[in-house]
């Protein structure tokens, strides 16, 4: 199959620029370059194309293909698996968090429970105070600690379990009376 004249010339020019012509073919082509403007322009276009392809192929973003790409495809598979694994772990963590959140009651106590909660809270505080008296013997300090707005004397778990500041029946908050 013979190529059109201009395609033949362009192909010859590219081979000339790449140094692929034999010595005889190169000399013949250079004789042509001496007075053939079209051949000169083919060489100019081939030269610019080669330089641009080199620059483009060297730049990032052009994926390599063919036999040299086997290692690349393996590394791509590895990174895809890692990404999938990350997603699975993150989803599992989110699911655990949601499960934990649902264990904690978020609904405010009903009105009928307020009084019993108050009584229970008072008992707990009383028990705590008596316990502290037995262990440490300085009730006044503990009283100060209990009376103060600071929560340092009362352990956090107690505060979390029994709210010392419960919402009133009419929606206003009221403090639990300590015994």
């Amino acid at each position, binding site marked *: 199959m013979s190529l059109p004249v201009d395609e033949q010339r362009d192909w010859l020019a590219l081979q000339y*620029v790449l140094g692929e012509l034999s010595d005889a073919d190169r000399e013949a082509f250079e004789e042509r370059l001496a007075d053939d403007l*079209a051949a000169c322009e083919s060489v100019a*276009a081939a030269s610019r194309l080669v*330089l641009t392809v080199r*620059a*483009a*192929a060297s730049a990032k973003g052009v994926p390599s*293909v063919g036999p040299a790409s086997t290692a690349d495809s393996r590394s791509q598979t590895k990174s895809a698996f890692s990404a999938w694994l990350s997603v699975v772990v993150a989803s599992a963590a989110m699911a655990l968090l949601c499960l934990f959140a649902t264990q904690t009651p978020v609904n405010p106590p009903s009105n009928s429970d307020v009084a019993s909660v108050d009584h229970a809270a008072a008992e707990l505080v009383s028990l705590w105070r008596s316990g502290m008296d037995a262990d440490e013997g300085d009730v006044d300090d503990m009283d100060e600690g209990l009376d103060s707005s600071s929560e340092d004397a009362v352990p956090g778990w107690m505060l979390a379990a029994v709210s010392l500041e419960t919402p009133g029946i009419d929606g206003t908050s009221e403090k639990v009376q300590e015994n």
Partner: protein
Amino acid sequence: MTDDGGPTKSGQPVSTERLSPDAVRALYDIHGRDLLAFLSGVLRNSDAAEDVCQITFQRVLESGHEAREETIRGWLFKVAFHEAMAYRRKQVRRHESQLESLDLAEAENLSSRVRVEELVRVEELVRGEEIEQLKQLLAGLPADQQFVVRQRIQEDKTFAAIAEELQVPLGTVLTRMRLAIQKLQKWFGRDGRGK
């Protein structure tokens, strides 16, 4: 079509006065980039191409007025080619005299250093936006064509070496390269040759 740049084949009078520096500058703006690309292809060395391009436009200053305006482009390429051949002969003589005074290892080192210089100052001939466009065109080529293009142009392997590596006939590699270049050259187009 040939052009010898000589005076008056059609009887048209030729200027007897030299071209002004501004006129030469204007010619450089129009034809300089193509001339530089042509000389890079002939000499395969960007430094040499720039030197010869400078010599060419020096000749334009000296005798460019003798060429007809409609054939000045052909005249420029002709002068550039002759200057490139003279430059190459001079370099060959200089290189041979250098090699005579070096041992084998130093001679090979000198040759490899000359090859690396071909890639210097690409930005004078290649523009950033052209690189981006060609990147996309390269990525759109069939895998086998893209591989040959990369191996030949980027890795600088010969067609024979690529054929041996792929265990295919040399003609197959040449065909893949030719088809790939046809597609890429459509982007360059004949309109983009400075006409």
